[in-house]
Structures are given as C-alpha cells and as structure tokens.
C-alpha cells in the first residue's frame, strides 16, 4: 500500500498529449459481432473483484491516465510474486523509475487497422500508445500499447546494454507528417491520425504509421519507408476463412512484384498501398 501511495504522490503524468480528433476508417466494421463486443464490455465493466483474473480498474479507459493505471495494475499483478532480484534488469529498472517518482508518461491514441480489428471477440477500434521517460535521464525506457478495453496489448523496455540500445524510432508527430505530405503530393492532406496495420507493410502497434486524407485520397506515412497512397479506387480486397489464405499470399506477392504493398484495414479487408514519389499530383 505504501508503494502505491508513493507512486500516486510522485508520478508525473502528462495528460494533454492524447489526440482527441475524430477517428476515421477506410473499412468500418460490419455489425456482425457487435452483440459479442457489447457482451464483452458488459462483462468487463461488471467485474468488480480486484482478485478476479479479468479485473482492471478502468474498463474501456477514456484518458491516458486511466490507461496507464490499467496497465500498471495488470503489470504489477503479473510480477507481484517475483522477488526484485529475480526480475529481469529492464523490468527492475522500470519499477525503480515508476516507484521512484521519475516516470513521465505521455500517450497517443492510435486507430487500429490491424487484423485484430472487428474480430468476433472485441472491436479493438483503437488503443493508447504510452511512452515512459525516466525524468532523471530524459530517455524513453518503455513503450506500451494498451488496448481500447484497458488490457495491455504489447510493450517493450529499452535494453540496458548490448547491440540493441534503443527503442524503435520515436513516433512521428502528426503535424510533421502533414507538413511532409503537403510537400510531397502537392495537396493539403489533413485529418492525420496514427494507425497500426499489418501486411507486407507493417505499421506496428509500438511504432505506428500516420494516415492522412486529402484530395479525395488516403495516404500513409510509414516511419521507415516513407509515403504511400492507399489505392482504394482499385477496390478493397476481402480475405476471410482459412480457404482464403493462399489467395491472400498470392495477392501480397502480386503487389510486391509491382513494388506495391498489401495493407490490412481490419480483420478481413485489405488495400494496395502504392509508393508516392515526390511531386505526385493528388489526382
């Protein structure tokens, strides 16, 4: 209890960084599984016993601070029985920074276009991407993805030593991506939002892309591979069920042969992503 009180008093939490603009989708979910999503949400909200395996303090959090508290609850519970000396060094450092009041936490809201979106169990429409910086050093020590429901999706701690010294690249600022896009495609893309996706072009949940709209088109800024135009004019592709697996692979190989990519938009919808060369016209 004392440990929690120390954390509550000393944690420096930045609340203002979450994006509040309306999220948009290229391929919205159908209504097929909405009843199951509601059932899951009701079940989570009605789980009030902190000892229950699926309890989290803030089901379906709406703020960065609530998502962070959900994560910390899950993470502390996972390692509660592990003596400090048996924790991995990166894990030990994480708890030292948090319990020592040196954690500065910021968060972003990321729209989920990965294949986990629109599934039969949960909608997974978005998630919170949290960044934990050790204020003593100014270095990001941990990056965390907390699902829309409040459960942890994925995380990585910055290694202490060795070949991998850094976390993935810093997440690009939305305004910066808009600026770059306006130069590149000679239009004024707007409505920038972070997105996670998969396919032959991967926008990882811990290193998301930026999606933008402009001139009737949708663009994607990949953190390492530059800009792409989502060619929805060619039509969205749907691959559902095991029988479609070979068709999905054929489509991805065909895209690669044209120097294009296949990008997921949800559990079953895919689109071709075409590289954008500098100076491209919007139409």
């Amino acid at each position, binding site marked *: 209890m004392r440990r929690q009180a120390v954390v509550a008093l000393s944690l420096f939490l930045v609340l203002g960084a979450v994006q509040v603009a309306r999220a948009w989708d290229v391929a919205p979910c159908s209504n097929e599984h909405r009843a*199951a999503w509601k*059932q*899951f949400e*009701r*079940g*989570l909200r*009605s*789980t009030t016993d902190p*000892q*229950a*395996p*699926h309890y989290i303090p803030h089901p379906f959090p709406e703020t960065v601070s609530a998502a962070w508290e959900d994560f910390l609850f*899950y993470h502390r*519970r*996972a*390692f*509660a*029985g592990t003596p400090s000396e048996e924790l*991995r060094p*990166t894990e030990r450092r994480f708890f030292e920074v948090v319990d020592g009041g040196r954690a500065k936490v910021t968060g972003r809201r990321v729209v989920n276009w990965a*294949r*986990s979106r629109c*599934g*039969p*169990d*949960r909608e997974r429409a978005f998630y919170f991407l949290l960044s934990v910086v050790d204020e003593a050093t100014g270095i990001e020590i941990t990056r965390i993805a907390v*699902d829309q*429901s409040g*459960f*942890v*999706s*994925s*995380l*990585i*701690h910055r*290694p202490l030593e060795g070949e*991998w010294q850094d*976390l*993935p690249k810093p997440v690009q600022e939305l305004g910066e991506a808009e600026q770059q896009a306006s130069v590149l495609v000679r239009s004024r893309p707007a409505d920038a939002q972070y997105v996670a996706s*998969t*396919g*032959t072009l*991967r926008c*990882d949940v*811990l*290193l998301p892309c930026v999606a933008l709209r402009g001139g009737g088109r949708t663009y994607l800024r990949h953190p390492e591979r530059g800009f792409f135009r989502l060619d929805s004019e060619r039509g969205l592709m749907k*691959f*559902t*069920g*095991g*029988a*479609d*697996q070979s068709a*999905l*692979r054929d489509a*991805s190989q065909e895209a690669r042969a044209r120097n294009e990519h296949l990008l997921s938009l949800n*559990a*079953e919808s895919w689109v071709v992503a075409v590289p954008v060369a500098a100076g491209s016209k919007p139409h």
Partner: protein
Amino acid sequence: MSAYTSSGSDAIWDADDYSNLDYFIARQITSIDTSIPVLVIAGSFHAGIVNGGHHHEVPDSGGMHEWDYVYFHDPQIGPDRYYGADDWLNEMCSYSGDACEQIISSSATGGWYNNYSTYSDEVVVGGGGGGRPGGDPPAV
C-alpha cells in the same frame, strides 16, 4: 534452430488453424518450457523468436494460473518485446483466415498433449481472454 535441437534436424513446420489454437499453443509452450525457442510466423507477414513468457498464480483460486506475457524477439521492434497473452494469440493466429505457423523442435514438443490434458483447465488467458478457446471471458 539446429543449434537448439537434439539432432540438428528435428525442426518442423507446425501449422494449424484457428480452431486448434489451444493445441498449437500447447506445443509452443511445451517447447519453451524445455528451453527450446520457437520461430513464429505471426499472421503470415512477420516472423520472430519466442523464448519465454510469464504467468502468475491467481490468489485464492485453487491453483489457477493466469498467463500474462509472451517474450518475442522482434526483428523490427527489438528484443524481449512483451505481448499480452490474448494479443499474442491474436497476433499469431488471426481469426480471419491465417494458419497458425511456427518452426518448432519436434523432440522438444513431445509431451505437449500430456501437458495440455494436465494443465489446460488450470490456465486463464491474461489480457481479457475475449472469447477465445481457453480464453475464459469475463462473466456477464
């Protein structure tokens, strides 16, 4: 993989579909339990190495264990990436049509069905569990 297998040649391509997800996971956990890592093809387009995970005993549950994390060495993101258990299932075996695929040591997975039969009823999937096989979703 050959460095970790007894004969250097017993690594196999293990593919199953979503309906057998719990069997597939039992083989993966059995291999990791014997300290033999597994090469996982996550959702057809991404691959990396799984070599561990974390679970804890749920208090006052009579021995129920919650499976918290999987440790995934991700060539794009970095080493020792954690996945919440439920999201790991999602990442690896999308319910939208992929086969679940892994390169795994056949000798290291010899006891998988025994492990599954013995322990599967004592494991709850952390991270929500959301209606998956063995996921034990929250009561409504």
